[in-house]
């Protein structure tokens, strides 16, 4: 009995292991394609062309106004000078500079096609809207900050200084009324047209045309075309994206791996239910034999 159950046990572990290991690897890429076919045609997004940005930070100001966010003062107490994205600053223009090159880069939520924050959120507070915006719902959120742990770009921020903190992030202006009017505050404010707002499919086409028509001006990559399963905000730049602070990510979102495993194990709850009845049967037999032994 003992040896048999041990062997059985090892077998079960091995089988579970193999299943868990194989499932996400074979299905991650195809799952991306299957699940998100068509999203690029429907979803709205933005294209930021770093070579056109003059670093005037009009977008920052417009974003603060649109979202009614307070100033983050510098040491002199006169300038709004945030150093990083925060619960008070949803978008930020940074400057990259080395001996040979320089580039501005605007950061905000990427509105991922397959967002890790949405996949992880336990109470459906983070939502991928039908128009592509990734939004946050105060009533649903428990403040677990799993979205922060999951987001590959470290975008969601939490108000750590408040007793009733909220999660704050760029919601593609879906939360402040601009998106309904057909634009985002930052893209509207940009004087040079470095931020385009539009349908992702068209933005992608524009980006490709710009690379084709301006040889040597851009690095040969549209950041966000595939990265982390694709993002709704796309980037063109003259400086390699790693240097602008973008992580190097696989062509699928970590959410695909996570959900792949989750769905393999819990598909229609069949496995858990079968295991439950198996356990109940074994436990029933064993408790009964224990009772009998006691009576004897």
């Amino acid at each position, binding site marked *: 009995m*003992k040896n048999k159950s041990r062997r059985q046990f090892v077998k079960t572990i091995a089988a579970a292991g193999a299943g868990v290991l194989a499932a996400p690897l074979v299905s991650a890429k195809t799952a991306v394609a299957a699940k998100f076919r068509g999203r690029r045609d429907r979803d709205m997004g933005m294209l930021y062309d770093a070579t056109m940005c003059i670093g005037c930070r009009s977008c920052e100001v417009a974003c603060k106004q649109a979202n009614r966010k307070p100033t983050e003062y510098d040491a002199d107490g006169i300038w709004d000078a945030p150093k990083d994205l925060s619960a008070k600053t949803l978008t930020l223009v940074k400057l990259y500079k080395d001996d040979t090159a320089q580039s501005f880069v605007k950061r905000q939520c990427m509105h991922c096609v397959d967002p890790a924050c949405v996949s992880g959120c*336990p*109470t*459906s507070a983070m939502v991928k809207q039908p128009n592509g915006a990734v939004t946050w719902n105060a009533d649903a959120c428990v*403040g677990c900050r799993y979205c922060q742990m999951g987001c590959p770009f470290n975008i969601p921020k939490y108000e750590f200084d408040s007793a009733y903190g909220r999660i704050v992030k760029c919601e593609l202006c879906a939360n402040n009324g601009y998106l309904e009017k057909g634009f985002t505050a930052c893209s509207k404010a940009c004087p040079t047209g470095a931020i385009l707002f539009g349908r992702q499919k068209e933005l992608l086409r524009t980006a490709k045309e710009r690379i084709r028509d301006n040889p040597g001006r851009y690095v040969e990559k549209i950041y966000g075309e595939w990265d982390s399963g694709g993002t709704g905000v796309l980037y063109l730049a003259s400086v390699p994206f790693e240097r602008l602070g973008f992580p190097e990510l696989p062509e699928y979102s970590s959410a695909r791996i996570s959900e792949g*495993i989750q769905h393999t194990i819990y598909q229609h709850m069949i496995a*858990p239910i079968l295991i*439950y009845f198996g356990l109940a049967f074994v436990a029933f037999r*064993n408790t009964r034999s224990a009772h009998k032994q006691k009576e004897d």
Partner: protein
Amino acid sequence: MAHVNAKPLGGKIFTTPVLLLLAGAAIGVFFLSVRYAHGIGAVSNLSDYMPWGIWKVLNVIVGAALVCGGYACAFTVYVFNQGHYHRYVRPALLLSLLGYSFAGLSLFYDVGRYWGLFNFMIPKYWQANSVLFEVGLCVMTYICVLCLEIAPAIIEKFLHGDGRLAQLLYKFYRLLDRFLFLIISFGILLPTMHQSGLGGLAVVMGQKISPLWQSPLVSLHHLVSCIAMGYGCVIVTELMVSEDYKIESHLAILSKLAKVMSRFMFVFLVLRLSEVLRTGAILQAFTPSVDSLSFWAEMVLIFGSIWLVRNDAARIVPRNIFLGSCLTMAAGSLYRINVYIIGFHPAPNVSYFPSVPELSISLGMICLQLALFITIIKTFPIIALERR
């Protein structure tokens, strides 16, 4: 359930150690009031880059793994039909119930919007893709199951007497005993799900976790190690609160338990090593960094825990069993801290170390838990005693 001769340990409740534990708890409660008045940032070093700290990792993730002895023992006794371990089931279940309740309680100060936690019970907010949702729901259900599993121990105290209440209780007691196998099966299925889920949480964090720990198998690593940790915790408790191990036959059982524990640790070691070899992440363990240091510390602990109870001769010495169990718990705990804190690199040059108030809250809650455990085993029939 009644075939173990469990008795309350008796004795004074407010002994010096218990008072010290309560003092520790009081400090924690003081800082908790600051947290509720001024927010999480006022007491902790948590930040937008390191949003999960010791509250979640130590009190919830490590805590739940340490106390899963109820699961590990139920598994051995009822599935592998090893009835002679039966005497450990009750203390293990009590440890589990307390541990899980405190893990749940910890969430109420760790999460920012604690009133929203009830959303877990409202179907319109359910999010089936989320590992955290699955873990949350499983843990909540499991706490209820644990209450049912431990109920006979509490009821036994009130059975004597012949009032209507006692009769009613007796009926309930019989009913529980009769359908115990249904409850026990839940008590095995649910922990299997959420203990692996506690590891599965890491998967969506993708490349933010060092490849030394990130893996599609991270759930399996958590599951296998938590069982060993659960046994370890049961053994340590038994050695500390009961003198019975001085009887040879009981030491023999305890040493068998240690054997099972080390088997699981061995499987854990093989799984971990084969994974870092498969992905090639092992190379990173040879570049000097906090990560590699912590990786090797974890390996040494795992190896030490197996070595201490390596064969029957080693396992017959109570000190070896005790130390082996302690190392097992330490190894599993460090593994979890490695996954979620030390190996978590959201951006270059981000570091986190808990603040004093943050630590005080964590430790205060652990003190409170221990004080409660001691009080309960003194008052209720949990620990099996052969001689007094």
